[in-house]
């Protein structure tokens, strides 16, 4: 199937089955294969030489991957779904919001969910949200389909002969907020991002921070604090709890290892602080804050800036 030497080939499968066959054949022939979703990461990287590929398997024509659907408890989003497709999706307002603030119209029209997972950029908006959402990644390879938790997928990476078919997350059980901070959104990834998801049914709050570690990290201690502190019958919490929540996130962010190397935008200390600010703000937006006790300042250290 493959020509030898430097020649290159483009595969345009129509079904997931064809894609797996082509990927496996290309992989066996020993050529460098790249999976192409929207291309917003891959194409500039090919141009700059950051990545190379002798064979490209382009997934745009695989209509199975462009479906999103809802089960009784879960939402499944095909790997080929674009950010624009998710914008305004009423079944997951939080995911819709995270997709809405990715890049520019041009990028949102082109970039896909599968590409966000495959590229796994530290500043990826969707990764932070999906980490907080306890998402599962569905992949398929010649060995058949597989499901795995997002952290395992990100830690192990995608097998060279596998492709992501979809991501699955629970239907929302309460407010979900995604916030980020950084340079011009349309041109640069977030420096720090934060997702807070509240599940009023299961009495749970989850929080993930992107931009402090190589991958988004969950804020376990802050989550446990919130679980104990929130009045789950009303969804209210004291305003001092929002400050404490932000402080716990700052502490946890500073402990993340391995830390993301400091870039031109933002020292480590700045990013920890920003994580606390965003977390406190997202926390306050998800829950009803009760008035602070008399004599206590209204603004918290890290949770300043109310919605």
């Amino acid at each position, binding site marked *: 199937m493959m020509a030898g030497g430097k020649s290159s080939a483009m595969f345009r499968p*129509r079904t997931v089955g064809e894609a797996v066959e082509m990927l496996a054949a290309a992989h066996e022939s020993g050529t460098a294969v790249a999976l192409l979703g929207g291309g917003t990461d891959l194409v500039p990287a090919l141009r700059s030489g950051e990545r190379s590929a002798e064979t490209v398997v382009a997934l745009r024509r695989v209509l199975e991957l462009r479906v999103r*659907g809802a089960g009784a408890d879960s939402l499944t989003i095909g790997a080929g779904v674009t950010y624009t497709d998710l914008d305004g999706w009423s079944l997951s307002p939080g995911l819709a919001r995270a997709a809405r603030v990715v*890049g520019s119209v041009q990028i949102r029209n082109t970039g896909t969910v599968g590409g966000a997972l495959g590229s796994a950029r530290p500043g990826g908006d969707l990764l932070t949200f999906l980490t907080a959402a306890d998402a599962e990644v*569905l992949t398929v390879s010649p060995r058949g389909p597989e499901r795995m938790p997002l952290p395992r997928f990100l830690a192990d990476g995608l097998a060279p002969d596998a492709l992501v078919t979809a991501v699955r997350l629970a239907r929302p059980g309460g407010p979900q907020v995604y916030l980020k901070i950084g340079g011009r959104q349309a041109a640069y990834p977030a420096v720090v991002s934060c997702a807070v998801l509240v599940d009023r049914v299961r009495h749970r709050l989850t929080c993930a921070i992107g931009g402090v570690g190589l991958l988004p990290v969950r804020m376990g201690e802050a989550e446990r604090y919130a679980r104990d502190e929130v009045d789950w019958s009303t969804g209210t919490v004291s305003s001092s709890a929002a400050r404490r929540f932000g402080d716990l996130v700052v502490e946890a962010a500073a402990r993340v290892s391995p830390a993301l190397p400091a870039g031109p935008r933002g020292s480590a200390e700045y990013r920890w602080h920003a994580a606390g600010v965003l977390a406190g703000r997202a926390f306050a937006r998800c829950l009803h804050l009760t008035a602070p006790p008399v004599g206590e300042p209204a603004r918290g250290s890290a949770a300043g800036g109310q919605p």
Partner: protein
Amino acid sequence: MTAVSADGLDAAAGGTDRGDAGVDGTGREKAGTDGTGRGEAETDGAGGGESYRLHVDGFLRTVSGAWIGDSLLTVLRDVLGVTAVKDACEQGRCGACSVLLDGRLAASCTVLAADADGSRVVTVAGLGGSGLTRAVRAMFLAEGAVQCGFCTPGFVVAVTDLLTRHPDADEEEIREALAGNICRCTGYGRIVAAVRAVQAERGILPPGDTPTPGDAPSRPDGG
């Protein structure tokens, strides 16, 4: 053949969003029923490069022997001589290379040309000289939205796309929708004024509603 479980997607409940995009029935991708051989690598015998066809501004163009990693931008400019798209950042950040790809605004530097096989590509030159596009061009000139002009082709495509989808966009929505296009001359005030002028001409804004460009937009990222 690999077994692909239906577990992959809850397809029945969700339906297909825009399932037809990218498959326009023309070009080589035949909608035949035989599954055999479809999607085989289509290498061109001579150079080992790709051969594919693009509908560029209404004309069917054949590309042969291009490098597989070439972006749509590179192929448009360097292979097909379509200079209506401008080449600046090549990272999907500046919007100078904006085109409509099967009707959707895209940065052509982030699209793999070989993957656009069979697609309709519309540059500023293919938008036509009447209707909305005429109004956008006229108001860019009338409002001084063009200085060095390098970003203008991308802006005109992006503005036409915006006003097609969202004719009554308010200023904040205009600024957000055009965030993917960078202009280093105007500071954007004149460009927003041009968009407002198009809306006014088309009766979407009340004539007395004087646009006030330059107001700080609220941050869509909540930051």
